């Protein structure tokens, strides 16, 4: 991504700013419009849950695996929730194989905060035997094609995969923990929705394309848990926001969040019926 300055030339930047001042974008969208979003679930049969999300040409796939494990020492009565994100080398001419770089780590950690810290999954319901056996939920997200706004795409895929997940039902007997062979839904309590906005010139737009990201000065991602609750935030990129811009970002995150939450829930419900 450090090479994005090479991708979009100065002319494009001027043109983009020019158009933005008129309240529209190069691809014709309004400032606060998302590109078309599609969400499919249940596409990886071997996973406990899965989802493929497209936002415009950005495409990611998420899989959920539930396994038994040992709890952390300081939370003996809670299950584990681990989120990873990787930009696959096939996703972009600039992605490279190898251990995750700082961009990929930020991507995964912001998704993780939006899910784990906000209490989406009730970790106490994942405890089988206190201090000994818990369920570990792995949410692994792979980016298949990069065209901007990875934060939201990763977040929607992770949430949709979680919402469509089941987990094995275990019985705790005198001899130990036993898989009953039945499955139950994951205890998902919330549907956090992340909204990413960027600053170009003095204009804030949502859902930036890769071209738009190449000329942005700052990025902010805000997740809401419902129409009155913010549950994660991350400012990124070497630039700043004024207080007014931050407040606009919060309001936008809440209102757009409601829209997308409905759409996502509908998609997942639809996916479940299909299965």
């Amino acid at each position, binding site marked *: 991504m450090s090479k994005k300055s090479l991708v979009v030339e100065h002319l494009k930047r001027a043109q983009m700013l020019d158009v933005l001042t008129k309240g529209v974008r190069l691809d014709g969208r309004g400032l606060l419009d998302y590109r078309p979003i599609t969400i499919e679930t249940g596409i990886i049969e071997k996973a406990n849950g899965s989802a493929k999300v497209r936002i415009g040409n950005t495409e990611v796939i998420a899989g959920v695996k539930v396994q038994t494990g040992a709890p952390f020492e300081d939370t003996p009565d809670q299950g584990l929730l681990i989120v990873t994100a990787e930009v696959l080398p096939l996703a972009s001419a600039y992605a490279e*194989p190898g251990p995750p770089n700082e961009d990929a780590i930020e991507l995964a950690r912001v998704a993780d905060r939006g899910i784990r810290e906000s209490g989406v999954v009730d970790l106490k319901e994942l405890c089988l035997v206190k201090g000994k056996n818990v369920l570990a939920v792995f949410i*692994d997200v792979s980016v298949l*094609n990069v065209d901007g706004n990875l934060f939201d795409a990763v977040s929607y895929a992770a949430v949709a995969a979680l919402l469509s997940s089941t987990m094995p039902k275990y019985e705790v007997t005198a001899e130990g923990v036993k898989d009953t062979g039945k499955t139950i839904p994951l205890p998902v309590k919330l549907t956090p929705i992340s909204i990413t906005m960027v600053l170009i010139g003095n204009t804030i737009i949502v859902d930036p394309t890769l071209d738009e990201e190449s000329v942005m000065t700052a990025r902010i991602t805000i997740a809401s848990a419902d129409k009155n609750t913010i549950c994660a935030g991350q400012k990124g990129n070497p630039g700043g926001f004024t207080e007014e811009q931050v407040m606009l970002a919060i309001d936008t995150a809440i209102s757009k969040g409601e829209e997308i939450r409905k759409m996502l829930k509908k998609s997942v419900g639809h996916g479940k019926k299909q299965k």
Partner: protein
Amino acid sequence: MSKSSITKLLDAKGVRHDGRKFNELRPVTMKVGVLENADGSAYIEFGKNKIMAAVYGPREVHPKHMSVPDRSVLRCRYHMTPFSTDTRKNPAPSRREIEISKVIREGLEPALILTDYPRTAIEVYLEVLQSDGGSRCASITAASLALADAGINMRDLVVGCAAGKIEGRVVVDLDDVEDKEGEGDMPMAILPNLGQVTLLQLDGRFSRKEFDEAFKLAKDGCMKVYDIQRKALMEKYFGAEETGEQ
């Protein structure tokens, strides 16, 4: 390859656990040109295998000193997503993935006219979204489609199919269960028009005669896959009727 067979792999009539005959492939679909950014791409479903292939190049070599004056450097990475396997896979590349990346690369190279692209790199990325038996064969098939889609000059396509042995019987195209419970597996890839075997691996135990049968079954399997592969290419480039994965 454990000998303790829990599953019954063949019934009295020689029907396999999923209903196939000894010489029958699993369902296969392919699609060319599925990723926006890649110079070429393809997607394959082969049984439960779901594999994405992308090609970048010919392009500049990084680091530069790895470039070769008279031809392109072919690179290949075969990788499995953590959710692609029964038990979650660690995302770091395993020794198995590194070996498979190598044999796929070496299996593709004879089909490519690398001397047409001096001082460049051609990079092939294979991502197994869901794995089943035979993922390396499905991968090399998809990789060759993605290379064609990228417009790389080729002498032939490459097409892969395995044969194996279950309960003493040689059969084509093992799935995961057959691979685990069976007695042998022989993945193979060929250049269908040039008649070259460019990938061949074998484990388990085969008598001399069983090897001949396995070779024939794998070769016939490859030719069947080749038909599907050609159709997928034509659909992309000549707008034939749409099939396979959306």
